[in-house]
């Protein structure tokens, strides 16, 4: 019995080594997820690309209609891949609000000319102020906002064909 106790340190070591080995084989989630899911949108107001009076604020989201809030930029390459999927979402009845990050108005216009414009409203955020306020960490990124202006869902990265039904479902859930 006493001899068995001598193996305790070995057992503890094996346990720790096992845990480390298991963690090493697991795929790593490299994204920093937003901690704002379930929270109301922080107050903000943003102008359209090129400047002028604000066209988008947190109040724009509180009219009872759920929306997609899409962060993108003309200089962001995955945003090109995402464009047809946004067009599909719009075709399925989704209202998409676009926020262009650190972008020149002429580049925004050229991008929309080439890849289509799925946005109901478009605003510009030159210092990623709204992106940081929402806990978003990169481009492109899409949030589902319900009709009370509450953040319901975060999609990180470009929207692929398989993500379209997921986002439509989240929009439906946000609307009920």
């Amino acid at each position: 019995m006493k001899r068995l106790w001598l193996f305790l340190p070995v057992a503890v070591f094996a346990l720790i080594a096992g845990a480390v080995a298991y963690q090493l084989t697991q795929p790593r989630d490299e994204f920093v997820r937003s901690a704002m899911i379930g929270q109301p949108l922080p107050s903000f107001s943003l102008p359209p690309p090129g400047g002028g009076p604000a066209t988008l604020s947190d109040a724009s989201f509180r009219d009872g209609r759920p929306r997609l809030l899409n962060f993108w930029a003309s200089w962001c390459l995955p945003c090109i891949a995402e464009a047809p999927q946004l067009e599909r979402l719009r075709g399925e009845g989704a209202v998409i609000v676009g926020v262009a990050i650190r972008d020149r108005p002429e580049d925004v216009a050229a991008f929309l000319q080439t890849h289509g414009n799925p946005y109901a409203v478009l605003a510009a955020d030159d210092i990623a102020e709204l992106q940081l306020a929402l806990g978003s960490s990169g481009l492109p990124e899409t949030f589902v906002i319900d009709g009370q202006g509450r953040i319901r869902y975060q999609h990180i990265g470009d929207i692929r064909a398989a993500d379209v039904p997921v986002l439509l479902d989240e929009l439906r859930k946000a609307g009920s």
Partner: protein
Amino acid sequence: MTVMKWLAAALLCILPLPAAAQSAMPPAPLADRQLDDPRLEAAARELMHTLRCVMCQGQSIADSDAPMAGDMRHQVRSRIAAGESAEDVRAWLKARYGDYISYQPELNRVTWPLFAVPALLLLFAALVFFRRVRVAAKPRR
């Protein structure tokens, strides 16, 4: 020769891609500009060294050249210039990105074993050591 030429041309096509994947816009006003008040600047800088860049997660926002890190530095400087304390700004970011955003070790419900286990092990080792010493000091019959 022509094969080499085509290869060179193909290589040149790939090269400028990473450069294109960056914003052409100037950085946020306070991303790389110090605050006028040296005391506030020092506070901002100290905080920036303990905040993780969300784009390049191995670097602090003070060390990173990513545009996102510049925007985060702008937030830190402008909030501190507006009178917020460094801990207010840290709390603001934690509310958005979770504890992962801060490099500062923190004692809470999840992390307490990290601090408790070494102390317990030390106590255990000391106990074993003193028992051995006592046994060894005992005169043998």
